């Protein structure tokens, strides 16, 4: 039982990171109906930005409180990553809006290749390890919970609450939901569609940057190619939860996190990704539009 709860906590941590990335996928899909393949690499760029900021802080000051350091890393990473995603949307996706469906997908894949190779060229191909930032581990009834995991879950919960408020209670969120339903009608009613889409990309990137910072803190290492696997997992999570649905993305992220940690705990660690992907396929056979997704109504 203890072992199970332990794995549950590990899964929750992992799932939080996936959920944060998955929201970016699902929001962009919801509003313009494209798979933003570069999102995984945006996450990686966020982690690298946090890494560079961490090193700058380390070289400028003798010691910085961990909370302050994390906060600065997160904020700089969010700003920088948002700038990346905003630029990418403007350069690579906006001119192709209204073109056929696969065109933005191809530019997204191109951007994904370009981003990861840009980081490889400028920062070098090796793994970048950092000294552990937070190492405290609590022992609660025989279950060890590290402070890192607590930070991840709390930050994720706070961000999700903020995000929920933004989407459901502000005029910006209303504009986003309107664009999601009918872009043309929203434009006719005075919503600045281009701006709303840009902000959606910025929000997705900011969440991915937080996920990147947390990933760096949790694992203590990042490499230029680390965007792909979490990106695909998060995309899987978004589809599993029903793409376009925000609670679905979080739910899917947590599910993938649980599946992974449970599978590696009880079966074999080698096949944890195979398990996650197979469960995706099985779920989609029975629920073709994901767990919380609305079935697409087709009008002829």
């Amino acid at each position, binding site marked *: 039982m203890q072992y199970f709860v332990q794995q549950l906590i590990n899964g929750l941590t992992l799932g939080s990171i996936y959920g944060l990335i998955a929201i970016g996928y699902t929001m962009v899909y919801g509003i313009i109906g494209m798979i933003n393949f570069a999102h995984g690499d945006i996450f990686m760029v966020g982690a690298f930005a946090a890494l560079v900021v961490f090193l*700058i802080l380390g070289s400028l000051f003798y010691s910085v409180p961990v909370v302050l350091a994390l906060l600065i890393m997160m904020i700089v990473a969010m700003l920088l990553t948002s700038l990346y995603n905003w630029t990418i949307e403007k350069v690579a996706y906006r001119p192709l809006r209204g073109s056929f*469906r696969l065109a933005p997908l191809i530019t997204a894949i191109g951007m994904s290749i370009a981003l990861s190779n840009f980081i490889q060229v400028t920062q070098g191909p090796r793994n970048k390890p950092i000294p552990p930032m937070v190492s405290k581990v609590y022992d609660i009834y025989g279950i060890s919970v590290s402070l890192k995991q607590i930070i991840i879950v709390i930050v994720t919960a706070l961000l999700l609450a903020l995000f929920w408020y933004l989407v459901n209670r502000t005029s910006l969120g209303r504009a986003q939901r309107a664009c999601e339903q009918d872009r043309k009608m929203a434009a006719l009613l005075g919503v600045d569609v281009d701006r709303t889409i840009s902000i959606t990309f910025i929000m997705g990137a900011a969440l991915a940057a937080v996920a990147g910072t947390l990933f760096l803190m949790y694992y203590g290492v990042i490499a230029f190619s680390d965007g792909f696997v979490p990106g695909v997992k998060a995309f899987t999570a978004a589809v599993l939860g029903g793409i376009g649905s925000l609670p679905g993305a979080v739910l899917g992220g947590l599910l993938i996190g649980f599946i992974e940690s449970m599978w590696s705990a009880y079966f074999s660690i080698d096949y944890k990704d195979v398990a996650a992907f197979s469960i995706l396929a099985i779920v*989609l056979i029975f629920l073709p539009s994901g767990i919380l997704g609305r079935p697409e109504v087709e009008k002829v």
Partner: protein
Amino acid sequence: MAVSVSSERDTVASPVQRAFREALYAGAISLGLFILFIGLKTDQNISNQLILAQRWGLLITVVVLTMLGRFFYIAYGQPFMANQKIADVATGLLPASVASRFFQLPAFIVAVVLAVILVAFSSALPALVGPDLAGYLQFLRALAVIYALACVIFYFRAFIHANFTKLGIAALVLYPILVVVVLSVYAWSIMGGLQGSLKWVDNYGIQILIYVMLAWGLNIVVGLAGLLDLGYVAFYAVGAYAYALLGSHYGLSFWILLPAAGAMAAFWGVLLGFPVLRLRGDYLAIVTLAFGEIIRLVLINWRDVTNGSAGVSGIPKVTFFGLMTFNSSDPNYIGKVLDIAQSSAYYKIFLYYLILALALLTAFVTTRLRRMPVGRAWEALREDEIACRSLGINTTTTKLTAFATGAMFGGFAGAFFAARQGFVSPESFVFLESAIILAIVVLGGMGSLVGIAVAALVMIGGTEALRELDFLKSIFGKDFTPELYRMLLFGMAMVIVMLWKPRGFVGSREPTAFLRERKAVSSSFTKEGHG
């Protein structure tokens, strides 16, 4: 096309003023983008800790270059193109005017003379002007040759356009012979020519043709049936491992295993097809992607059979239909049978013709299938699935046949790949490969075989050509490796080509089945299916 929001303001300012403003914006944005990643570099010191190295000079250079590029594009590039368009409309020279100004007789003569002189003195050049300058001159020589060839193509464009397929096939068939002849004359010995041809036949010819074949295979699934498949490389992997394992463990011949590999890949295609039949659009995309990853992960982890990440080596070579082999130690080695000197080029040339034959088979089958009921059903499925079902087309079998046929050609290509490399490992079957193949299909204009071949030539040949740019070392220093930038440029080229030609290189689509008269459907009117 989306109209930029600031267009009303832009018409007031003069181009130079506007360019100045835009350049400042571009500079600010690129400064923000690059300050952390180009301005600083994370390096490991001796005790393996990360430290920061500063590169502010490089950062300033990049930002200034971005600003200049943006400035000249807005101030001179855009007005020039707009004027060009007006002039073209006025003179009726619409597509050809820029090209006819670019390809002119005097320039052609200069290019030919330059190329001939540089080729004639190429061996004496390094001694004459030093190795650095010789590198530039070699680059200049390549440019002159390419320009001269382009001029010839431009001059005969009407003829080429009319007989494109025949000429293309003839060029492909003659390519290795031409390479060997030209290089033999150049090196003044046939053996030298054969040895020199290795790079051209193998790195360019075979490499590009493998991608052409894969893209033509994927075209059946994506271009004809309209099913977005992001895991095509899985079938390539199945074919490659089928030949690698059966060939190296049981010693079966390539000619038996080629159909077997195709059949196995097709079987896996059907296996994947069944669960995903109910899925649409992007759900299908993610499941195929997941399937590709599952196959790769199984190949990595099932160590007893696949030898894990270390891969399978010692895969037997293809034989010349069992009559001759390409191992110089065998009694029926091609050199001994035909009584010619020993060279590794024979095998490469043979492989070139083999992959050419396989690729042409793919094209032939595709064009034939398109005229058969099943091909028409694919195209109908792509255009409108609901209409298809209401007309009584069995969408299940239609999708399954598309998956199976596409997968079969992927399997053929995989078996060929294993035979060519002599070694396979899961490294070769990552998602990036699927993405590249899909990009070639879309960049070529989905459904168009010629466009896809051109796209493969440009994208794969272009990145291969980057390996040749060693002379850049003399500009950027000895540490500079152009290969590092290969995939960065590839990704950017994907974006740029897509923005420039969103419908692909061949942008118009002709339905195979038509009523009464043949009408080309303009690209801007066709809408992709949802499936």
